[in-house]
């Protein structure tokens, strides 16, 4: 493992829950993506409206959602909105992504993680496995506790 004290590029994906080849080209902004008919990778900032991307989802292979600060939770809504609209490409959380946000991000539809600071693999593995069961229906398709109770 690299020195955890050194910052890694936001494009260095540390965790990925997909089998396809990662998109290998840079992302554009949401505005540029709407103007540019050939862009296949885009990066959402916290203030962007994820819904402006909905007409272009078919051609997008990668959407990065940036978390400049872990406490800004807008990216969780952006992720769910994209998945709810049927986006099936890679949804990557980048930026200030920390151990204790991983399980919630995963539930909101993120399937790739590129933290600014590389995370401890064991801590992360435990974090992804935090919840054996869940109370809320989200885009991750997991059966909820309430559904299990009434099978």
């Amino acid at each position: 493992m690299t020195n955890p004290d050194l910052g890694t590029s936001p494009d260095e994906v540390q965790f990925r829950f997909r089998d396809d080849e990662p998109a290998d080209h840079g992302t554009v902004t949401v505005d540029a993506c709407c103007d540019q008919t050939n862009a296949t990778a885009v990066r959402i900032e916290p203030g962007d409206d994820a819904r402006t991307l909905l007409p272009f989802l078919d051609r997008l292979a990668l959407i990065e959602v940036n978390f400049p600060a872990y406490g800004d939770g807008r990216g969780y809504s952006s992720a769910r909105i994209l998945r709810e609209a049927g986006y099936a490409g890679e949804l990557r959380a980048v930026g200030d992504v920390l151990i204790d946000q991983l399980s919630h991000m995963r539930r909101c539809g993120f399937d790739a993680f590129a933290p600014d600071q590389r995370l401890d693999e064991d801590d992360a593995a435990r974090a992804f496995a935090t919840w054996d069961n869940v109370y809320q229906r989200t885009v991750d398709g997991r059966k909820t506790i309430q559904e299990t109770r009434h099978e």
Partner: protein
Amino acid sequence: MYSYDQYDQQMVDARVAEFRDQAHRRLEGKLTEDQFKPLRLMNGLYLQLHAYMLRVAIPYGTLNSRQMTALGDIADKYDRGYGHFTTRQNLQYNWIKLEDAADILADLAKVEMHAIQTSGNCIRNISSDHFAGAAADELVDPRPYAELLRQWSSFHPEFTYLPRKFKIAVIAAEKDRAAMRLHDIGIQIIEKDGEQGGEIGARFYVGGGMGRTPMIAPMIRDFVPLDQLITYSEACLRVYNRYGRRDNKYKARIKILVHELGAEEYTRQVEQEFAHMLDQGVEPPREELERIKPFFDDPAFEDGAKHVDRSDPDFALWVDRNTHRHKHDSYVSAVISLKPVGGIPGDATGEQIRIMARLAKQYSFDELRIMHTQNVVLPHVKIEDLHALWTALDAADLGAPNMDSIEDMIACPGLDYCALANARSIPLAQRISEKFDASGKTEKLGELKLKISGCINACGHHHAGHIGILGVDRKGVENYQLSLGGSEAEDTSLAKITGPGFTEDGVIEAVEKVTDVYLDAREDGERFLDTYRRIGMAPFKEALYD
């Protein structure tokens, strides 16, 4: 009352394990204090002036005697022998060591309790009517809906990093005993005429709150069908999570968003999101509500005496003051005042907490409630048991006959404990209750809600006090502003400041003066609040400043 199944237990156990792991990583230096802070906050752990404070969730203020006993034991084992009941129907310990926190959470988990989301920018513990399931005037018991919301809001993956904290209250009576419209979301369960007779649904009020910018929540939907309750809540939260302000923490509550957008525009956005979410299947199966409801079924009430022997005047006074009409005519709900004269509002010793637990087991079908006014309720007490109950309470210094009187004040911990406070609240509360008790004026004043906050964050609900006191710092000296005319009840209103502030002695005198104005001006049956509303601020100002 509700009890956990294996899944609920597993969720709480998972959280305890997660917190142990986080605390461990903090100690190892893998987490900075800045990174650890929101995590410990979401487990109810605050750093106060002198020590850590741990806030325990009491969902919709309902608990059983086993849980109450555990709270008393924790007070003795890990605190300095006290628990402090809060305006969020919770309990906090003010003297906790960080290294004990995970063990306390494990002790709580053994009795189906936790400290989850009692702090942090997430959906907090759901509050409700403290007389739920007992009050004569309720439409239905609101707690099954509160429980449905508890499950939905626990560890909600999208709403864990909201712009700011988020509080939800659920009531089901016209009388509001939960300050519903001063919450981020206030839900009133109502009935409307439907095709098959009466249909039950939820009325949504969004954007209320106290703090530095007090606001009364406007109604945004008069009827949400019960099988869309969670979906509608989710839509309200998503609009807030996406568009609530994050540039300034003092403008980040949903009340500011609703105010800046206007209730109409906020509602339009919620309705749009709601229409989208109806297709997402976020609503739990309808059977879940039906599973929850029987947990709140009536206990086996028995007919008995309908009246008490009033020959003991002290007992008769307590009955008049501290009991509330029950839906069964052989029962009442009994309020245990945690406001003894000169005491700290909301405090109880470990032993007192265990005594209340025992009495609940003996006299109230094993059930207790915490009131947002920092008192405890035994919801179902047989009228013929009242004297025995009162005798036991009185012996434990829990028999103060002062519910809803000036002595039953709400006070925040203030500068004695809180790192945010500008002024002390507790000594002021103590002195006022001593003064009014000694002069015998409490009785004459009748219902008078006094609420004291030690800073503008308004934890002591001063905006909603018939008389409110706000402690501020004026050039390094504690100074107290007086306000009049607030109400947290169904006639919700925000108190108005009388004028320049007072010293500690001065504000006590000022409270005395405004109560004198009331006693002189009141007409038959008027409470302080009614008189104030009729005659306005001017006569009070005159008495205070001329």
